[in-house]
Structures are given as C-alpha cells and as structure tokens.
C-alpha cells in the first residue's frame, strides 16, 4: 500500500467536501497512515476466483405492488430545511459569476 501523505489527505478532503484546517490535516494525516498500514494486508488474502460479497443477503429485484402510498407533505419535507423560500429549499448559489 502506498503511503498516504498530508497532500493526499487534503485532496481526499476536497473530494469529500470537508474543509480541513492545517491543524486538522496535521492531526488526521498521520492517523490515517497508521490505519491504512494496518489494513494493507487485505490485498493479498483472496484469490482471483473468489466472488465478491456486497451484501450478506443475496437478494435481487425486490418489487412491491404498484400502488400509491402516502408520502411527506411539502410542509413536512421542508420542516428541517436550513432555509425555505416559497415552499422550496433555499440554497446558496450553484454557479460562479464566470459560469
């Protein structure tokens, strides 16, 4: 397993949409390196022909009857929103000015 550097952690944090301060990066990066080191052994355990398990219970195609069931009202759905405007979720801008 390759080492995980402070820069790698910063990049991963960006991908995961978490602002990490310098102090947090200093704290977390070495811990993550230790954790990764301890799980590295996994890459040599299973032979090529072992099928992967994604779920303990091999279920496929679970259907239900196509009947309408009650859902949340608009009011209920919006009840936990940080900001609401005209019965909609109000969110910060998505695009920059140059876009």
């Amino acid at each position, binding site marked *: *397993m390759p080492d*995980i550097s402070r820069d*790698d*952690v910063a990049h*991963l*944090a*960006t*991908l*995961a*949409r*978490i*602002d*990490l*301060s310098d102090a*947090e990066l200093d*704290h*977390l990066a070495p*811990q*993550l390196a*230790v*954790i*990764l080191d*301890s*799980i*590295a*052994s*996994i*890459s040599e*355990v*299973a032979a090529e022909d*072992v*099928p*992967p*398990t*994604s*779920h*303990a*219970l091999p*279920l496929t195609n*679970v259907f*239900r009857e196509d009947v309408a069931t009650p859902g*949340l009202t608009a009011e*209920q*759905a919006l*009840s*936990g*929103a*940080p*900001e609401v405007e005209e019965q909609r*979720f109000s*969110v*910060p*801008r*998505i*695009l*920059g000015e140059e876009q």
Partner: protein
Amino acid sequence: MTDWTRSTAAELADALANGETTSVELTQAHLDRTAAVDGAVHAYLHVDAEGALAQAEASDARRAAGSPASRLDGVPIAVKDVLATQGLPTTCGSRILEGWIPPYDATVVDTLRRAGLPILGKTNMDEFAMGSSTEHSAYGPTHNPWDLDRIPGGSGGGSAAAVASYQAPLALGTDTGGSIRQPGAVTGTVGVKPTYGGVSRYGLVALANSLDQVGPVTRTVLDSALLHELVGGHDPRDSTSIDQPLPDLVAAAELGATGDMSGVRIGVVKELSGEGYQPGVLARFEESVELLVKAGAEVVEVSCPTFVHALATYYLILPAEASSNLAKFDAMRYGLRVYPDGVDAPSAEEVMRATRDKGFGDEVKRRIILGTYALSSGYYDAYYGQAQKVRTLISRDFEAAFAKADVLVSPTAPTTAFKLGEKLDDPLAMYLNDLATIPANLAGVPGISVPSGLADEDGLPAGFQVLAPALADDRVYRVGAALEKLLADQWGGPLLAQAPTLDGVAR
C-alpha cells in the same frame, strides 16, 4: 412499595396484565430514576417525559378497556438516537443534526408506538455510530454505571447504560460491527444483533447499509426475545428485509432457561481468543463454556482462518459505505448550514465544505476520508474489491464452522471497560474492541452477548458471545438463556445485582 425499575420487562408486562401497577406508575418510576442518576451517567440525549406519560395514559386506558395492543403494552423503552422519531429530536450524536426533528418514524419506532410502549427518550451514541466507547458523541460521553470513569462501550453506550442503570427496562440499539453486543458486554447487560434483514432498517440513519441491524438491548435474554419478536419481521419499506416469519424466539429463550443443553453442539472459535484478550475475560469465558458442557452441551474447537482479516475487511467496507451515506449531509435540505468565514456570497459547495467541517467530529472525518480513499480510482480493486472478496471467505468460514457446530462462541469483547479518554485519539486501539463482533456483521449472522461475570483484574463485567447461522436467531436465545440461568444459579442472582446502586451520585 415495589421499585418497578428493578423488574424485568417480562415481569412488568405480567404486573400490568395482573393489574398490580399501571403504565403511568412505572413510566414515572423510570423517569424519576433518570432524574436521579442520568446527570452522572448521561445515557440520554433527550428525555421525553411528557410524551412518555401521555403514551402511558393511553396504554392504561387500553388495559382498562380490556384491549392491550401487545404483551409489552405500557412497558417503557429507550430508543437509540440513530432511529428517526417523529416529533422527537434525532441527532445521531452529531452536531450536523442538532435540533433536527424527523417528519416520520422509523418502522421499528412506529411498531413500538402501535404496540403501546411509551418512549422515554433518545439515547447517546458515538457520532453516526462510529466508535466503541460513546466518546465520539458530539454531546459528551456516556459513563459506565459500573464505574463512572469508564466507557460504557459503543456505539450504543447510551442504550446499554440506560438499561444497566435501571433507567429503562428495554432499549433499542443498532449493531454495525458490535455496537449492541460490545456495550452489552462491558455494562453487564444483554444485547442481540439479529440476522441481517431480520429487523427493518427503514428510518435507521445508515452508517453502513450492508452491515447495520437494529436489535434489542435489555437486562435479560427473555426480554430481548420479547422485544426482538415485537420489532422483527418483514417490512416492505426496507428492500433488504427478509420476507419470512421469525423463528419462535421467546419459546427458544424459555427452553434455554430450563438450563438443559443436551444435544447442542458448541463451537469455540480458535481465532477469537488468546492474544489481545484480557486474562479475566478469557477466564470467565472458559468457565461459561464448562458450565454449558456440564449442562449437556458438546463442545468442539473450530477454526475460522480468515477471521484474522475481518477487522481490515470491515475498516475498508464500512468507511466506503459510510462516506457515501454521509454525502447526504450537504447543508441543503436538513441539518446544519454553516457559511464560511470571510467569503462573500459563498457557493453551495463552499457552504457544504464549511458545514461538514463544523458539523462532523474527528472520527467521522477520518472514516469519510478513508472511505473516499478506498473507493477512489486506482485503489478500488486493491482495497474495496479485495475486502468484498474476503467477506466471501469469512462467510465460507462460518459455513464450514456451522457444519460442525450449532452455535459458535467467543468472548464478546477482548477487554472490560477501559477508562474514558484512554483510547480516544488512538483509532486503531479503539477499533480492536470490535475484533470478535465484526465477523457476524460481515456475514450477516445473528449474535447475542450475555454477561459472563466479572474479570478478576478489575472487577468489571465481561461478555459471552453466541453466534448462529443466518435465520437461526432462536439458537442464540436458547444458548444465551441457558448460560444466563446457569450463571445466575452460581451467583445467586443476576450479575447486575453486584453493580453500584448509584444512589446519591452527583447530578
């Protein structure tokens, strides 16, 4: 006057049915107990006295009319704060959900309400169920009723401490890698992780979908069986829910309580003991196995060679699923929203990044980043793909072992409760607490933890784990109840009778 908080849920149900008490009386008794001790224990994040008493009144009215909704109608319960409760805060122990009040009930919560169990409150937990000590709760740790300076286990330390300190006769927990069983072990209580798919996950805020299960947290095996039978079974709202009836769990617990183990083959898992296990925990484990053998069980040693890779497998699969699950906390539709400092008109992405930095604690950040890494291109096949293959090998080990034994047994956790703060900033040491419980989650099989006694070194509780094949949850109840009875006969009562009373603890 009877102190109803000391009774089991089964006894309370009988007392209600016989008219010896009312739901209001015993709900109030538990609320009073919480008022007296929870300042020191901190099992609850939220107590709903008013709501619980209103539900208790309604329950008493049903009893008076001769139409109780269930055997447990009127018996109060605590619910882990990871289960959505309409009208009651649900934080998952995280700042990012502080003050969130779900507009719907989890299916299991809806079942509790329909069955008439007053909900006392929501119990503390490691943030998003990530942890083994409850110290990762954003709202402060829960304290172990056996020693308030020690951890109550985790992630469901709140539920375990609530029943251990007689603040509730029953609680619901969730178990992703041991979060019901390990707290049970270190608090001297009983906890069951059902077969994956045996209890609905609808309304359970997912940590790792393919591993999470809701289950009972109680003081006795019979109480767990009663609660498991109530909340278990098929739920069309959970596509991984098993569409077939549960085995008769209460009957299995009653059969076990006769103490007769003849005809039962018990497999001791070689890989789940020895190095890393505290001597006092191993001593209580070995005595428990001997007791079961004396009661007629046949014991065999089984080997599950890939179990040694279970921890590594788990810490790839869990963060991968968690990082994807927690992407929904984006500061847009619910939960916290934080605007970054010194940015004019920040974008949605900047708000999201600032919110997730403020809203998530260290352990959540660690696991999200680990999961993002494991799923990123170039590493996916080497880590996540490999972990999924090892998961298959672990299931095969279980299959081979269950060909030789009806149940498998091990200590539940390698050690007794450690001191608060001791492992807080050493993630790897913390992860090792789940060494013996994780294989069951990876394979989806059921497991129970029952108290096995106090370790000689520190006088703290240890747990005995019983695992059974998928869908054979009844076996863990039979063996668990047998051991519970055999040990109680030796001790002259339940282990919890030896716990400090907490009378006069500072609030």
